[in-house]
């Protein structure tokens, strides 16, 4: 970006501001504050904790960027952003700091924008000072009087649409004494999006004003994209690391029942303020509000971020993953045992004690169980398009049953399940030109479903092991 331009503008504005400060506020005994330029990084990262013990004059250069990019695999959307990301880049200052905020509306943008920071004490939160057309820069200063985690957002009419297109982020005002040290920090925001096509409808999607007014989002997402925090983008942590997550809801409309499957929040700074609640399962976060949650993973595996208003998670995209590494700790969480009920216990449900008394042995997964697993995956993930009998829909969804493509290229089928596919495809001599999204399935499930389709629908046999899928996943 145009760095030299920015720097010179900042220098000018800074010196002008310092002159002002010298005349008014700081006239008594307060020495001139050291000037620091805020480092801005893309979420889920955020600037490091503040180590200084005194106030500073923090200069923030935030750009407004209108960008078209994927909202879901194969689905594009025009986002309006602070700093090019959804959520916007996090600002991190210390209670008592003076913040000099510069908003740069890039010349190739189309729309006017501004910023309202909830950390500001004063009407409009900066909105009036910063309303600018493309190709302009605005600035103002405010004093960060109160510590807390605050949302900022665009407040240009129609405000709901600007926010619905991704124009929100957060500013953390650390208390003077700082926050207790942790091992990892993350920055995640939830937002609701309204497209005229359905969830995961392919191609470029337009904003749907009616869905927005009706508060019926097509997508509810963490960090601005379906999959922003899953797959290769999953967050990572080690067992026993203290993790702090700065979580906010940009909205514009939908609040969050924020929950992480597989952990308990040791501490929650409720609503992003100063009071801490302990041992919380789910914390309610309002639109335009926040929470700081702290937790400590103890065992390896995936923790799953969700909005526990659950159809948002499972039908609209509000899912993220934290991949935790470390040694197994069966005394905290065991692997578990699954087996069929003994025949007599099915008949006599009143006498389960005998079955439970049998020694616990983890049985090697039997072939029938894998076959059943494959069918379950097929029914939940494939049948909706390729139909329950696997015959597909002529011209729209290619057949999986009695498919020459499948029989000749079962590995490629697994690759498609793993990575998605778009473009033309010839199956049994008929041409298809659609989009299949990548499926969020684990190695075992992909192997099971491919083998199920091979055996049940193509008179074949098992062709793929979970290990082969794992290798395939590494290479993508």
């Amino acid at each position, binding site marked *: 970006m145009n760095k030299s331009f920015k720097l010179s503008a900042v220098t000018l504005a800074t010196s002008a501001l310092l002159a002002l400060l010298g005349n008014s506020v700081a006239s008594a005994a307060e020495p001139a504050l050291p000037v620091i330029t805020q480092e801005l990084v893309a979420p889920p990262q955020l600037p490091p904790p503040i180590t200084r013990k005194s106030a500073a004059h923090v200069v923030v250069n935030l750009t407004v960027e209108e*960008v078209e990019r994927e909202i879901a695999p194969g689905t594009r959307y025009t986002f309006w952003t602070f700093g090019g990301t959804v959520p916007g880049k996090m600002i991190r200052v210390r209670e008592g700091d003076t913040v000099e905020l510069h908003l740069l509306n890039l010349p190739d943008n189309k729309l006017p924008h501004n910023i309202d920071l909830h950390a500001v004490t004063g*009407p409009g939160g900066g*909105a009036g000072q910063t*309303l600018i057309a493309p190709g302009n820069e605005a600035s103002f200063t405010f004093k960060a009087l109160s510590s807390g985690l605050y949302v900022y957002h665009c407040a*240009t*009419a*129609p*405000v709901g649409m600007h926010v619905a*297109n991704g124009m929100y982020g957060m500013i953390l005002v650390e208390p003077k004494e700082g926050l207790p040290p942790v091992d990892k920090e993350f920055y995640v925001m939830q937002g609701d999006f309204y497209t005229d096509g359905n969830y995961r409808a392919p191609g470029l999607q337009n904003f749907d*004003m009616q869905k927005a007014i009706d508060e019926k989002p097509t997508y509810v997402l963490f960090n601005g994209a379906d999959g922003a925090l899953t797959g290769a983008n999953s967050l990572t942590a080690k067992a026993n690391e203290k993790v702090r997550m700065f979580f906010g809801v940009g909205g514009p409309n939908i609040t969050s029942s924020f929950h992480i499957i597989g952990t308990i929040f040791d501490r929650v700074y409720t609503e992003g303020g100063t009071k801490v609640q302990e041992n919380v399962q789910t914390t309610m976060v309002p639109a335009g509000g926040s929470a700081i949650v702290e937790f400590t993973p103890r065992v390896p595996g995936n923790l799953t971020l969700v909005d526990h208003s659950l159809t948002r998670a499972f039908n609209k995209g509000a899912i993220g993953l934290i991949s935790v590494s470390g040694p197994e700790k069966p005394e905290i969480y065991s692997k578990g045992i699954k087996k069929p009920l003994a025949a007599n216990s099915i008949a006599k449900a009143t006498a389960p004690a005998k079955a439970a008394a049998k020694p616990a042995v983890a049985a090697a997964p039997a072939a029938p169980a894998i076959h059943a697993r494959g069918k379950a995956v097929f029914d939940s993930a494939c049948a909706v398009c390729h139909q329950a009998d696997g015959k597909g829909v002529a011209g729209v969804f290619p057949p999986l049953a009695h498919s020459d493509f499948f029989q000749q290229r079962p590995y490629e089928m697994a690759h498609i399940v793993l990575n998605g596919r778009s473009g033309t495809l010839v199956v049994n001599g008929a041409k298809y030109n659609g989009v299949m999204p990548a499926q969020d399935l684990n190695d075992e499930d992909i192997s099971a479903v491919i083998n199920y389709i091979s055996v049940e629908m193509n008179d074949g046999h098992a062709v793929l092991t979970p290990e082969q899928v794992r290798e395939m996943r590494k290479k993508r």
Partner: protein
Amino acid sequence: MCTPALRPLRLAALVLLSATAVSVHASDSAMPDYRAIAGGSLRTVLPADGVATDASVAPFQLRSRLVTNAEFAAFVRQQSVWQRGQAPALFVASTYLSGWSSASDYRPLAADAPVTRVSWFAAQAFCESEGARLPRWYEWEFGAAADATRADARDDEAWLAHILHWYADAGKQAPRSVASKPPNFYGIHDLHGLVWEWVEDYSGLFVNADSRAKGEQKLLDYCGGAAVTLADRRNYAILMRLALLSAMEAQQDGANLGFRCARDATPTRQGIP
């Protein structure tokens, strides 16, 4: 009505221009086409009382096409004071006509694309050169309420959604040719879907006309202001026009900001008297 804050500057612009010739672009294009619009009562998004009062729009004429690069180039050849590099910094920004290859050559931009990167002062000067002025907000809003077949299509949600698409598009491309799509009910092209447009009274739009209402400023530029001031909040496309205009200064310009001209119902066809 309220007085726009920049009136003194505008008068200065007129003084600056009063000595220059006004007959323009005989060779570059046909006489500009103005369409008569009868006016009447308008359910505006900016009611003068801040509540719901309809605006009254007097009969006027509106240029059917946006002013093009070719037309504006002819104008600056006639009135060199409006050429890039010569126009005073008081009236234009450093980005004035910056898409043109020289002070009078609009290439590589298309001849029939709408001229953009023009200040309010330059736009007003152009309109005066053809015996016109910039349209007033209520005139523009009146004309822009029409779709191809109806004088007022604003209760048609499908149409509102349709015109909104242009605003949601990130717009990195230069605007295409004017009048490449069919005109609206009044014979006017491109009121939606091509560029933003200057209006004559833009800087006075957001001031309360009623001095009895505590003289409060009705700012559009933040949440609260937008929520309490605007009527017809469903018309997002129009709200964005107002937000853009309220962000502008009269000497500024924009890559997607153009203009057309308007006249009173009985125009002085011979230019500035």
